[in-house]
């Protein structure tokens, strides 16, 4: 009898320990190899750091009142569409309740395409997996599927505001010339659909644009075109490597526009590491700078996990906190037998959000599952990014 009592006690204790060790798995994915590796490394670090903070505070409250720890598992999609699709299928086969990623827009676009387009459409066999994107920024992608959500800055709003502010601050500045990385989804879309359009909408004369490719090393012809255009503003829609190449060639050819405007993704450490001197003065709108108490703390905690804080990685940080809030408000079970129901709850919870708390302030959620994030303008000065203006 005594033996049975002990066995029952052990079983109960084990059961209780099991309950305490419940975990909610969040799958992160992004580029951790190739030239955009830093994006994946930083996003992973930010997600693990955010989960660590939440876990240290007790974890996520489940439907039955118990608490579960967040476990982040990160997958490398190498910034290729086929790998990204393969990974989301793998994630779907695990017990992850939600996926956070990807890094690249050329991955996000086809990947959202394999998700179920409309919730409850029985004729659509697409994956029913909530994906909450932190980095891929090309405009309008979440519209592809009702399972896709993004917490990326709205470039249209940001560049509209930037060109408006520049017009007010520098009324003598009249013309814009663009430089675009033609074969990179984000850079291309950002120039043609955002920067060019927003500059014209704010009364600038857009003289034209020069094109180059992401692997290019010789920019003499393009910079000569920029020189001939003699525009007041040169707006470069390219990632750090070619941005630096162009800026260095501009220096060689003595091209000095009145103002330089850069792409959101270039407001990172990479640009300063590649060409701090030549990038001096470039103005970029960004959705993150460590200017608030929360932002500074997030940057410091992420640094402990060997990640750098920038507009992309801090979106990953925010995503984990938003997901915690959603999982608690929707009451997920973290029970493997209820996995698909939990995923649906997370999706519905994300869809219900009207606003979220971000590191710079309140982010408004839009009907098409995108974010309208607070932002500010930063400028490269003396080898670091300094806040030039806070329009909000």
């Amino acid at each position, binding site marked *: 009898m005594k033996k049975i009592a002990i066995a029952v006690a052990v079983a109960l204790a084990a059961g209780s320990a099991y309950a305490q060790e419940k975990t909610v798995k969040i799958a992160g994915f992004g580029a951790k*190899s*190739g*030239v*955009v*590796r*830093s994006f994946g*490394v930083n996003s992973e670090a930010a997600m693990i750091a955010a989960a660590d903070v939440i876990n240290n505070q007790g974890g996520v409250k489940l439907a039955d009142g118990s608490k579960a720890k967040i476990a982040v598992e990160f997958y490398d999609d190498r910034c290729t569409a086929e790998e990204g699709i393969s990974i989301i299928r793998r994630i779907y086969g695990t017990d992850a309740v939600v996926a956070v990623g990807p890094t690249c827009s050329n991955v996000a676009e086809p990947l959202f395409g394999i998700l179920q387009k409309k919730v409850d459409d029985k004729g659509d066999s697409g994956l029913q997996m909530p994906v909450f994107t932190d980095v891929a920024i090309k405009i309008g992608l979440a519209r592809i599927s009702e399972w896709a959500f993004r917490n990326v800055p709205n470039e249209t709003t940001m560049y509209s505001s930037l060109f408006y502010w520049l017009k007010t601050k520098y009324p003598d500045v009249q013309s814009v010339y663009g430089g675009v990385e*033609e*074969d990179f989804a984000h850079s291309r879309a950002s120039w043609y659909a955002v920067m060019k359009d927003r500059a014209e909408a704010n009364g600038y004369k857009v003289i034209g644009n020069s*094109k*180059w*490719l*992401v*692997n*290019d*090393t*010789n920019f*003499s*012809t*393009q910079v*000569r075109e920029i020189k001939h255009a003699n525009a007041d503003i040169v707006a470069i829609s390219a990632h*750090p*490597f070619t941005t*630096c*190449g162009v800026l*260095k060639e501009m220096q*060689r*050819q003595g091209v000095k526009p009145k103002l330089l405007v850069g792409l959101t993704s270039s407001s990172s*450490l*990479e640009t300063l*590491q*590649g*060409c*701090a001197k*030549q990038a001096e003065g470039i103005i970029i709108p960004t959705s993150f700078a460590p200017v608030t108490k929360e932002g500074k703390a997030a940057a410091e905690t992420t640094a402990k996990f060997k990640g750098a804080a920038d507009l992309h990685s801090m979106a990953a940080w925010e995503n984990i906190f938003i997901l915690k809030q959603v999982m608690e408000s929707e009451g997920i079970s973290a029970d493997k037998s209820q996995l698909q129901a939990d995923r649906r709850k997370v999706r519905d919870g994300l869809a219900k959000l009207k606003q979220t708390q971000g590191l710079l302030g309140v982010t408004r959620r839009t009907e098409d599952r995108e974010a309208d994030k607070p932002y500010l303008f930063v400028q490269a000065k003396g080898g670091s990014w300094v806040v030039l203006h806070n329009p909000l």
Partner: protein
Amino acid sequence: MLDFLQTLSDGVLFGAIYALIGIGFTLVFGVMHKINMAYAAASVGGAYAGLLVLKAVVVAPAWMVFLGAFLAGGMLGWLVYVTCFHFIPLSSPLAPLMSTVGMLLLIDEVIVHLTAGMPQNYPAMFDDVMLRFGEFTLRGDLLLVFGISVLAMIGLLALLYRSRLGLATRAVAQQPIAAQLCGIRVTRVNALTFVIAGLLGGLAGALIGASVGALSPLLTTPLTVKGLVVTVIGGLGSIPGAIVAGLLVGGFENLFQQFRGVTERDMYVMLLLFAFLVFRPGGLFPAKS
């Protein structure tokens, strides 16, 4: 007209970089009749190693960084030989080809992991020197690359035709078995060829970094492709051919870009290669049969 001349001269000067890479490809092919696909990646790897010198010595002058790249390039050349050729059955043409492709990807990924893919600022030499003839300009740093390519060609030709090592190298290239019977250590000659090509590659990597102004893993694939194009157009195994073809490809590339746009540029470069393969398969300087 001035624009045309400027575009052409910019391209031709930038082609000196392709020429330097082409020389390395062609040297190894000339001796071993094998393509070393990892050559451009090892060259860029050498340049990255030069940066380590810069970081180790707080204010290292550019020449010290270049020297570091030169020496590291030689070491990487030897490493590529040992891992991709020495233990691989060379009778199968696919084996060293695939092993060097593997090495290319490995070097690329090692660089990516060490730098997180971030572009690294690279010290320049003569980047502020611009020769001006009215509106027409010539970049000083690219003239330096061009000068070094010519010097490398002269040095290599002198080594091949005026030294015992060169004699041994030519003997191995022509008849490895006969060379071995004459007492030439074929393995040693092959290894030395890789070290020499590697030294040159390290220097090429440093000059590329200096002329672009930054190093990035993004450089390895396009340089590999351009190096191969240059080697084929110049004539497999021909060092002067690599230089002429490098300048030619650089010039054409810029002209195609000027007149047909950046998105069509590489298509025309490949068409140029195709035209050579069809109409002059031996390249500009075909090897004597």
